[in-house]
């Protein structure tokens, strides 16, 4: 069962909460930031549900560099070399099923469902 991210870093978890609070107060559509980390050649989760406009923050907590890629008719993304400690942000504007993967370690896959 896909789930929204639960292993977010402390700072980002606060950011996510703030986004939710602001959206609720305004009574308007809100955009959230989901956080996924990379460690030991793995993403912290393999599936993620997002809404259009949400942002995915990918934090490299690994000892090695990674390369974030999305190849989709609605979204193409190539992070270049993502060094340890570096973050990548991807905004998902439109509904769809996206595969986020590492171009260096292709076993690292994160399926993002935007709806």
């Amino acid at each position: 069962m896909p789930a929204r991210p639960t292993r977010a870093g402390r700072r980002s978890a606060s950011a996510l909460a703030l986004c939710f609070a602001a959206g609720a107060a305004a009574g308007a559509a809100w955009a959230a930031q989901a956080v996924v980390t990379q460690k030991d050649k793995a993403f912290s989760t393999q599936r993620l549900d997002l809404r259009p406009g949400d942002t995915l923050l990918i934090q490299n907590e690994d000892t090695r560099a990674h390369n974030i890629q999305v190849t989709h008719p609605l979204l193409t993304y190539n992070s270049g070399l993502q060094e340890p400690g570096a973050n990548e942000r991807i905004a998902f504007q439109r509904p769809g099923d996206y595969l986020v993967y590492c171009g260096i370690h292709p076993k690292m896959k994160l399926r993002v469902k935007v709806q």
Partner: protein
Amino acid sequence: MRPVTALAAALALLALGPSPGSTQADRDLPALKAEYRRPAEKAPAPEDNPSSAAKVRLGWALFQDRRLSSDNALACVDCHQPERDWQDGKPRALGFGGHALRRRTMPLYDAAWGETFFWDGRAASLEAQSIIPIEAPDEMNQKMDDVVARLRAVPFYQGMFAEAFPEAPEITGEKVAKAVAAFERTIESGESDFDRWIDGDEAAIGDAAKRGFALFNGKANCAQCHGGWRLTDDGFHDTGLPGDDPGRGPIIEVPLLEHSFKTPSLRNVARRPPYMHDGSLATLREVVDHYADGIIERPTLSDDLKRISLTEAERADLAAFLETLSDAGPPDTRWSPFR
């Protein structure tokens, strides 16, 4: 000292050694061995290309058919020879006109579990992979339309495609790719002495190999990329070999990935020399020596490539371990529509 005790002691010493990065050596031996256990499940296949006996038979026929090359001189099986464990024993593959390519013939064992294909990973599936050598000018140099026209003129292929694709038996390039891919997924390594040891038979491998396994997961750092039952992370690494082949770099448009190539599985590795993407190392011992002494320093080297120091005895132990990864031999491939 009993072998298992000796190995546990070796692992314990490694855990206390000066290489704190060797985290795999910190785990207990049963947990470590579990990471190398073969899966019980059958080889996976994509939803849009499920396997069947008829499709595999067709794929094997196509794999052997030189009509797939423009000059009728090359079939897949000329480089991927079953009696040579699906490779050819050459440092670099021989392509169209007998000219040497720049890389070694790819290993095929357990390709069903692979993530990407070719040394640079430019194909994301076996279906995509199977077409590329056929159409590459320096390999089989054939156009898929011409392949299809040739196959349609062969009576036995009409029946074989109908059996393999009963819902739509017309011969097409897509079905050629699917059948070849379905066949390639049947190329599985068999049980080795190493597997029997992993499953609890302490006598299946010798003490030198057990010490080699400890080194493989510890001081020698091999498991950083060659971990798991297929002994590969399916990743891309610059392992410090000389040469100007850009490898993975241009595929993902990341210059610091130049000189990086896919980690090959080590299943049956002892029977499959020469080694590395360029076939430049003739023996397993030369491979071990390269990682200890031969790495060329450059900015693209893999983050996982630690500089190691190995004694003569340790190098021999690692080679002994690698020898245990061989199964009983290539499968029976005597069936052929051409014989």
